[in-house]
């Protein structure tokens, strides 16, 4: 590679768009064009539309209201809406707790499995089991398992003689939130475990052996060698997960749908209820915007960490 950064492009005097698109310079843009078009039409245009409706009092069953500009009223109402801020805080907490616990448990699982020398392939396959489950299935499965009258958990507790009254897992405020976080962790810990296991398998042997010779104990080895090496993998996993953390909506929708009495209400369930059940599309889209910002902040944070970690590792880019 003797040319600067573009190995295949030859200098052209690009004059006008046609010339540009015939040039070598255009190749990456042409390759990206279909992707850009799809994203524009399926993500950007709808987002612009919902941005507009968030400034109207658009009502699902009254199509004319789409052109009813009401300025910032939806956003103003949101600012003073306690129910919304509860949902916002709960969502933030939900994401933070779920992602961190998944990371810790995934790390633990990866470390454990990495120690097993026999049948590791089978273990890896079993580990991926939850990844194949549709979030909707996960929701249904845990709604069934946590059911207060016929659920697996309560049945087991009864038969072991640990309880005499059924525990209302999906009704009690604390337990219901625990249950949905448990389901979320069940669904997604595997992704962390697989990625971190891959990192462990790529771990260079020499520094560890050198450290052992120098008299470091297991914890010190882990803290000063294994963990720093794993950090980029942690950020990759965090980025991947924060990309699609909102699929937890499907699961919550079926388990509690935000209820009872809004105790497990997340931004996503509140939004669909406002939009589709109460028909207040304008307001729902305003909520949607706030939830988008929340997702972007999470992803952006981890992506920055990831880029930094990559540079640290001396990887490409």
């Amino acid at each position: 590679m003797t040319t600067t950064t573009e190995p295949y492009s030859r200098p052209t005097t690009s004059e006008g768009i046609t010339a540009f698109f015939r040039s070598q310079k255009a190749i990456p843009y042409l390759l990206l064009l279909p992707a850009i078009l799809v994203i524009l039409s399926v993500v950007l245009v709808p987002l612009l539309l919902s941005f507009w409706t968030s400034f109207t009092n658009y009502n699902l069953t009254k199509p004319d209201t789409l052109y009813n500009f009401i300025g910032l009223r939806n956003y103003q109402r949101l600012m003073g809406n306690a129910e919304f801020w509860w949902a916002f805080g709960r969502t933030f907490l939900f994401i933070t707790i779920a992602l961190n616990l998944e990371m810790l448990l995934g790390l633990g699982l990866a470390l454990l499995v990495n120690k097993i020398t026999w049948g590791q392939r089978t273990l890896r396959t079993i580990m991926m089991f939850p990844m194949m489950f549709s979030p909707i299935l996960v929701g249904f499965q845990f709604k069934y398992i946590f059911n207060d009258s016929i659920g697996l958990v309560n049945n087991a507790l009864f038969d072991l003689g640990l309880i005499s009254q059924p525990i209302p897992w999906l009704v009690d405020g604390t337990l219901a939130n625990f249950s949905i976080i448990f389901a979320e962790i069940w669904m997604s810990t595997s992704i962390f475990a697989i990625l971190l296991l891959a990192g462990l398998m790529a771990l260079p042997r020499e520094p560890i052996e050198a450290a052992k010779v120098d008299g470091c104990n297991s914890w010190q080895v882990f803290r000063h060698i294994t963990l720093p090496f794993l950090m980029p993998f942690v950020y990759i996993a965090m980025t991947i997960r924060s990309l699609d953390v909102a699929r937890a909506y499907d699961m919550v929708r079926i388990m509690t749908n935000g209820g009872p009495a809004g105790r497990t209400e997340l931004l996503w369930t509140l939004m669909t209820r406002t939009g589709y059940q109460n028909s207040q599309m304008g307001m729902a889209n305003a909520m949607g915007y706030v939830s988008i910002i929340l997702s972007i902040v999470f992803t952006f944070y981890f992506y920055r960490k990831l880029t930094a970690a990559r540079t640290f590792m001396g990887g490409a880019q």
Partner: protein
Amino acid sequence: MSAMTIEKPWQRWAIRIGVFLAMLVLTVPGLWVMLTAFRPNIEVLARPAIWIPQNWTLDNFARLFGLSASQQGLPVAQYFINSLVISLTSTLVAIVIGMAGGYAFARFSFRGKGPMFLAFMLSRTVPGVALSLPLFMLWARLGIIDTSFGLILVYMAINIPFTIWLTDGFFRQIPIDLSEAAQIDGCTRWQAFWKIEFPLARSGLASAAIFAFLTSWNEYALASQLTRTTASKTMPVGLMDFTAQFTVDWTGMSAMAVLIIIPALVLTFIVQKHLIAGLTFGGVK
């Protein structure tokens, strides 16, 4: 791959028990649902609980398909076909488009590359529910609501960013010299790509494909709004309809759940080797 430290026997047993418990937690909930699909409802509702199935039955599946007298069947076959068509088509197209994009990011340097890459990633973070409201309005106006095409388009958009990310990583791992050498030997760049780079990236593409397929096959939030009838309803939407029809028919729902999970399981096990490879090497660098 040998153990890097020599453990004492009790440590080895502690690790084994830990792994066993973890695997139990990961599998039991899913297996419990699958078991329920083959039990009669009366056994599931029984108090006190009946742990060991007394009767095995295929009744729940028969009812789903409308083979029993008391209940109209669900169009499960149609849902299944819709799911298959929509997932496969959107996966295929997303892989082709995403691969082109990933190749562009891996092999070219151009203005706006970094921000564009980030923009693709961020487009994926928009929650499906937030997108479903405006897409619903837009698709309704365009007349592509309740069509497979409408849903395929959406799933393409969801899968392209992640495919770009994965394939970008794969292409960057393939030494550029290989392709250059082929071009010196008289191949065009296009031929060099197909002969050299594509085969090397195949396992990365396979893993991107399985991810795209699973995402489309399992998606609910968007499908629930953009499909209205059997013309385009997918399996997850079918399951939700079922829960709205019979709120307490656990065994019937479990049977439906088994039907959703089986294709995903089969497919994932076939390509699981690639899946791990894809996750490990694609995203890393």
